């Protein structure tokens, strides 16, 4: 059937219009990201200095620094990973290597994917009720780390399972053929091969944890901490909470501090993400 030429043109036009609309929206999203970064940079770049990094919070904006928040964030993340990594990897190994597709395994899987979508502030309420009050940990680094570890658990489990799934079956079969038990096979063959993939997932989980604010506010992390935490029972603050504290003050000098704090936070995040990407690439090239 012949089609009139004008109709063909309209059809082509509608085709181009949809492609253009998609591209336009993507461009807008990327523009928003660029504007955000430039805006924060212009606001805060002048504030970031050595004194800002190693200073303590102060009621005078110009003197305030974020050392306790920086150190608090680092301690909290290390502690969180020390809790979440073994449990998360263990759960992933069970689900991927041991469980048969029974009812229990399917229920656990459904549960994990649901937990991944529970709002983070609900984890804060869990931490407040369970760790801070019931287990009497108080508003300590340990209570914060336990709360964040539970929050990260679904992410660690899901990414570890991906990494385990990528290990070829032939490797396992070769190990079994030589008489190794299941755990020997996993420990000596599967885990070393999956390690870079697991590590990538952990770094992504960490970068999520570094930005988390709400659950830590809920468990009662302090907003004004003029000291560096010295044990897991210390009260603490973290970068996002320090930023939130500065944003919520009416004096505009503190807003500049907030922008400076955001810059430090973003640099930390971007270097972590870069590390994850580098690892992933090295891992890929090694396996080729």
């Amino acid at each position, binding site marked *: 059937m012949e089609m009139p030429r004008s109709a063909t043109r309209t*059809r082509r036009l*509608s085709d181009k*219009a*949809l*492609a253009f609309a*998609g591209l336009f*929206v993507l461009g807008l*999203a*990327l523009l*928003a*990201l660029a504007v*955000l970064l430039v*805006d924060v940079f212009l606001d805060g770049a002048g504030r970031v200095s050595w004194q800002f990094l190693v200073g303590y919070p102060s009621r005078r904006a110009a003197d305030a620094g974020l050392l306790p928040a920086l150190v608090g964030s680092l301690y909290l993340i290390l502690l969180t990973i020390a809790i979440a990594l073994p*449990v998360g990897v*263990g*759960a992933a*190994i*069970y689900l991927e290597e*041991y*469980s048969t597709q029974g009812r229990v395994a399917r229920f*656990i899987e459904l*549960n994990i*994917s*649901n937990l991944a*979508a*529970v*709002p*983070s*502030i*609900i*984890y804060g*309420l*869990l931490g*407040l*009720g*369970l760790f801070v009050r*019931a287990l009497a940990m108080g508003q300590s680094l340990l209570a914060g780390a336990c709360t964040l570890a539970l929050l990260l*658990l679904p992410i660690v489990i899901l990414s570890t399972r991906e990494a385990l799934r990528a290990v070829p079956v032939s490797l396992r079969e070769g190990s079994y053929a030589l008489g190794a*038990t*299941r*755990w020997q096979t996993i420990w000596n063959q599967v885990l070393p091969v999956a390690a870079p993939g697991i590590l990538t997932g952990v770094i992504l989980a960490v970068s*999520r944890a*570094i*930005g*988390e*604010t*709400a659950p830590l*506010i*809920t468990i*009662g992390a302090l*907003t004004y901490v003029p000291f560096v935490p010295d044990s897991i029972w210390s009260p603490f603050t973290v970068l*996002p909470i320090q*930023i*939130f504290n500065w*944003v*919520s003050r009416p004096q505009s000098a503190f807003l500049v501090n*907030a922008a400076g704090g*955001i810059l430090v*936070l973003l640099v930390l*995040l971007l270097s972590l993400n870069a590390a994850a990407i580098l690892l992933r690439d090295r891992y890929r090239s090694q396996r080729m």
Partner: protein
Amino acid sequence: MTRRFRQRFETVIERALFACAALSVFVTLGIIGVLLFETIGFFREVAVTEFLFGTTWTPLFFNKRFGVLPLVAGTVLVSAIAMAVALPAGLLSAVYLSEYASPGTRRAVKPVLEVLAGVPTVVYGYFALLFVTPLLQSFLPQLAGFNALSPGIVMGIMILPLVSSLSEDALHSVPSGLREASYALGATKAQTSLTVVLPAALSGISAAAILAVSRAVGETMIVAIAAGQQPRLTANPLVPVETMTAFIVQVSLGDTPTGTIEYRTIFAVGMLLFLGTFGLNLFSTWLRGRYREVYR
């Protein structure tokens, strides 16, 4: 190692690993347990009907009223604005990435979208309060300094990558036979994308949309910073509002001793938030399972 020792060791390991996996179930039970325990205490002092249907929310005032509807209205309002941004934009970009973009473009754009999703929400809050609100005020002079509109828009930008990437997965899993059949009938790419591929992926896309709603409802820091903390029953996006999550933050920042009614209030609000998002998540999982089955 003797064989018996080896076998016993294997059993111990397997049990330990199972315990790790089962922990996730205990986390869920822990959440429900903690919320339920404090919520029951809350409802000993406040009638369920007052909580669910009351229209005044002043639990921190001397004259306490516990009608949660203003918080629900604030949450719904901000989430609706976020979805009005994230849904069309996310879908359009998903259609573009899945049906039009070259593999090179896709590889270049996806990591940038991931960065957009990885920006901490406290940063988005700063952006909403100090960039987007002043920008909007330049052509909406009646917009208050704290409002529902600008955190809603910024939240939409934050959720966009989620909608886009999940919808793209759904579009991608539509078998190419459907597209080819459509082309064979003389349809253009736009017609194929919009009238064949999109409807075929609808349950997957709905699952993405519902998950996005759940994310918007649970988002905390953007609204805690930029929406103001004034619970009011309104659909006007230009005035300050308070969401359920922002209220929990507000109380947590104060010094509320255990066992007081203020302390229990955040658990009651948290319970409502948990039930709402939990229902949405389950619905979303169910929908996603459905579209997987159709094309297996």
